[in-house]
């Protein structure tokens, strides 16, 4: 319990900074949206397209003249920002003890390594919840002036469930790397490269039509905004896949950390 609160306090500033970045992006985006709302030129382009095409190509989800469509486009950026934060928190919360040479001290406490990890994971999850909630509130507040309909709020909530799951995957990956890597300095660079690779995969998979199998390698592809909007449900198969990935990574973190020779 002490460790948990200690970690929360230590990470609070970082949470505030990331929250600030997220809020900044919400407001930049929203201020841009005001130029798009009901923009006649854009509406004319959309009207000129045959409705069958719009439906087939899921353009409805990305109609920038409505707040809902706008949110659909913003989703990708929030996914990036939140997952960068999560993966860095994950590795940092574990490896900082070795980096700052405090790991010896914390392990002389009468707590098992497993308990130490549990407290740290919980603190990091609380941080992720915090960041998600900050972004969610910022979006809620800034979009209120556009009087969105009930569908928008349903979509918003779905998006945040998806964002939170993506965050947790990256958090778990970060924690696992922090626990498993022998060289603590390498952990964060490996974590960052995993993030980059999955991000690049998501772009490539978006380009290629027949790349369904690539999608499994990139959490950014698990939840598409267009699908969330149209079906108003999250693809359960991917939810289970995410939960599976998280469970495996966390289990791996406990196993490797309790056996590792720590750098003192």
């Amino acid at each position, binding site marked *: 319990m002490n460790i948990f609160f200690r970690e929360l306090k230590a990470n609070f500033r970082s949470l505030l900074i990331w929250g600030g970045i997220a809020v900044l*992006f919400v407001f930049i*985006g929203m201020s841009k949206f005001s130029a798009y709302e009901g923009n006649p030129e854009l509406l004319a382009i959309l009207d000129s397209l045959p409705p069958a095409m719009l439906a087939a190509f*899921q353009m409805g989800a990305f109609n920038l003249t409505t707040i809902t469509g706008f949110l659909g486009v913003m989703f990708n950026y929030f996914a990036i920002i939140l997952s*960068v934060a999560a993966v860095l928190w994950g590795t940092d919360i574990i490896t*900082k003890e070795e980096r700052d040479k405090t790991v010896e001290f914390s392990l002389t406490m009468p707590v098992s390594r497993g308990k130490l990890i549990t407290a740290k994971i919980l603190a990091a999850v609380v941080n992720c919840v915090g960041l998600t909630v900050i972004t969610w509130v910022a979006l809620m507040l800034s979009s209120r002036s556009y009087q969105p309909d009930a569908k928008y709020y349903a979509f918003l909530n779905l998006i945040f469930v998806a964002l939170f799951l993506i965050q947790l995957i990256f958090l778990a990956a970060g924690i696992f790397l922090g626990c498993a890597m022998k060289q603590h300095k390498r952990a*964060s*660079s490996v974590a960052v490269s995993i993030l980059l690779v999955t991000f*690049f995969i998501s772009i490539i998979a978006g380009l290629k039509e027949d790349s369904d199998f690539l999608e499994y390698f990139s959490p950014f592809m698990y939840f598409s905004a267009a699908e969330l909007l149209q079906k108003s449900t999250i693809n359960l198969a991917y939810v289970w896949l995410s939960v599976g990935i998280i469970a495996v990574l966390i289990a791996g973190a406990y196993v490797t950390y309790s056996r590792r020779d720590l750098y003192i």
Partner: protein
Amino acid sequence: MTVNIYKHEFKMLSNSVITWSLALSMIIFLVMSIFSGFAESAKMLNEALTNFPKELLMAFGLDKIDLSSVLGFYSLAFLFCQVCLAIQAANYGFSLVSVEERDMTADFLLAKPVSRTKILTSKFLAALTGLTITNLVVWISSFAFIQLYRDGRPYDPKTLLLLLGTILAFQLFFLTVGLLVSLIVRRVRSVTPYSMALAFGMYVLSAFGGMLGEDKLDIITPFKHFEPNYIISNATYDPLQLVSVAVIILSIAGSYVLYLRRDIHSVV
């Protein structure tokens, strides 16, 4: 410059330089290896692209480029490279002098009979050498893999040279800004959050601005100053690059001033 410090710094970086260079060359290889399959069905591709919402394409800068042309497709690889190069350069910049303070070696180094200016210059040049090696690897792998996978399709080597020529300034931007920020803040605990925030933040800003067709944000982010699509479609540099150059010069000057005056705590 002091040769000892330079050599030592370069040795410290060499592993990282090799890893980054290999990664970048892999990226170019992977992207270009898809190309021949891609261009074969150029027609199908164009159809596939219309599948995507325009905003999404704009966000990834795909609305203006023709992915069935060699350089058009290469610009995708180049964008990925830019993201990596930015992170690498920012990493080096942020850690350049802050690592000494974190690892408690700063007072050892400063006790040597060398001026701070010399220390900073040697370290800076060592990092620059590392970045230049990566730069060269990108040059070589770009030419090699384009040649290998273009299947006789034409491309304009001059435009490619123009594009590759931007890398040095691009790297310098992140290196010097990272260095300056690391000297402004009191203590850099861990480099990665800083470099990720700087590099990815700039990338997201550029993608964000691209999607929304906004010009104001272009001024801040080097991803816009050195946008591959602009260079490929216009075959010239964007005048906005001058902003990057100005930032580089100011950051270097600022770093020297700050480092010379910095209060560095001793270990005990």
